[in-house]
């Protein structure tokens, strides 16, 4: 792999950038691989990278129906945090956070992980109770997360409106300083480049038609638009389309896919230093390194694969932003787009083995998949390589929906009485 560095940049600059090589080849499928990963998003490419890097499995193909990184990896609002309530979630997301901190150096690709702090606003007594519970649990789990008074919150994020007359007055906030954002496309590209350099084939524009199983029920490979690809191990990491792919292997999933919308404003000079989330009014906002305000919306009420999504939801989201940050009322929306998120009944991911021999799955991340990218990919690689759960992804099984051992972060933030 051609190393990136300040020197190489300078050298190439002086030679008119004629000598940069392609970051990953446009591979065509071989007849057989040790592992086929379905879905070339950050999660799938990352899993391939860690398979090659940490488990020496390089005969790997990552196949995607479109272009790599063209799904939710390239459509999300790039929020990264790990201050989750339950031990299982906290471990997984904090593991991801540890990997995020060194990812640029590890991949030799600047993914611009920006530790600018994620602040979650409390608007009522119930929020305060819920956040305190998170903060205490995080402290005992070694996850950083602290309480801010509303004045401290204002000091940390000056545009914030802390007037007591607000419809939903700010009563305080929880701040995770280690959290922040990253450059989403760079994550997919960085993993793709590093994986390809280790021999992984990245096969784009190659829709999977079905997962093929043998007489013994075990996985044999995948039928694709470019023909059958033999593989004893197949890992599905297809986000919104996971149900469809798994269905072809005869595995029915506890998933529903919803449209999720996001938007950016016109670029302005730095005004917004951190990431702010308000679950009560549904406002999620940060400012990109380009100067755009990046704003996350909620999911539409109905399941859909259309990547469209309606106007009313966007109107509410923007109203919420202007309620919490009144100075943005005259800012302009530049672009809004939709993604498809796959949601499980307990809003936590499914990550690991399936009832089918040789079939692995990584899905159900809902609206929070980006932040987990390195952690999910890293532990999925382990599970695929050893055909056993990683201590960190072990709780995120399919079985939990049978036994009732749910990891219900959403319910834990139950609505107020």
């Amino acid at each position, binding site marked *: 792999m051609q190393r990136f560095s300040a020197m190489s940049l300078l050298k190439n600059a002086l030679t008119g950038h004629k000598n940069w090589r392609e970051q990953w080849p446009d591979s065509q499928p071989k007849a057989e691989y040790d592992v086929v990963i379905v879905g070339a998003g950050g999660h799938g490419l990352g899993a391939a990278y860690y398979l090659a890097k940490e488990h020496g499995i390089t005969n790997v193909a990552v196949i995607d129906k479109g272009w790599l990184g063209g799904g939710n990896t390239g459509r999300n609002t790039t929020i990264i945090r790990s201050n989750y309530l339950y031990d299982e979630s906290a471990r997984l997301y904090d593991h991801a956070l540890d990997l995020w901190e060194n990812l640029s150096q590890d991949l030799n690709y600047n993914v611009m992980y920006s530790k600018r702090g994620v602040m979650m606003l409390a608007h009522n007594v119930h929020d305060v109770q819920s956040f305190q519970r998170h903060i205490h649990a995080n402290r005992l789990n070694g996850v950083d997360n602290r309480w801010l008074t509303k004045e401290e919150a204002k000091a940390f994020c000056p545009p914030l409106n802390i007037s007591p007359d607000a419809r939903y007055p700010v009563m305080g906030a929880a701040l995770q300083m280690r959290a922040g954002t990253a450059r989403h496309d760079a994550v997919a590209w960085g993993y793709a480049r590093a994986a390809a350099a280790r021999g992984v084939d990245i096969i784009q524009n190659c829709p999977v038609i079905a997962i093929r199983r043998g007489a013994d029920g075990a996985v044999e490979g995948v039928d694709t638009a470019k023909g059958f690809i033999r593989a004893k191990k197949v890992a599905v990491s297809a986000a919104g389309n996971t149900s469809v792919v798994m269905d072809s292997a005869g595995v029915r999933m506890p998933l*529903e896919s919803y449209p999720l919308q996001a938007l950016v404003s016109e670029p302005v000079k730095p005004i917004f230093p951190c990431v702010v989330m308000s679950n009560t009014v549904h406002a999620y906002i940060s400012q990109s390194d380009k100067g755009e305000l990046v704003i996350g919306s909620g999911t539409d009420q*109905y399941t859909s694969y*259309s990547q469209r999504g309606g106007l009313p939801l966007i109107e509410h989201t923007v109203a919420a932003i202007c309620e919490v940050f009144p100075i943005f009322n005259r800012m302009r929306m530049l672009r809004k787009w939709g993604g498809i998120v796959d949601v499980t009944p307990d809003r936590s991911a499914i990550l690991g083995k399936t009832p089918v021999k040789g079939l692995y799955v990584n899905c159900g991340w809902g609206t929070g998949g980006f932040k987990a990218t390195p952690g999910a990919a890293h532990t999925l690689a382990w599970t695929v390589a050893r055909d056993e759960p990683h201590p960190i992804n072990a709780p995120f099984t399919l079985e939990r929906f049978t036994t009732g051992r749910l990891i219900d972060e959403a319910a834990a933030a139950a609505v107020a009485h």
Partner: protein
Amino acid sequence: MLLIHCPYCDETLPEVEFAYAGEAHIARPADPSALTDEEWRDYLFIRTNARGPHYERWRHVHGCGRFFNALRDTVTDRFVTTYRIDEPRPVLTPLEAAE
């Protein structure tokens, strides 16, 4: 914003009057206690999540208040048909399926 035909009001009305109510034709088992944990899980959690024609339920919550069924293409979001809760699941014509 979708337009939805309420089979009870027999009018096509804006989505904001309606609430989505999940996949249709998942009947509550007559005797849940007779079910295995797996069967009960399937009832509780397993969903088709179809990419294409999808049988689903809506409630005309800000109108007549009725729950009803719909067949909607989840790729185009276009409704093929809506029907009363007591009506049988309409058979999908190949043409509609092709959509």
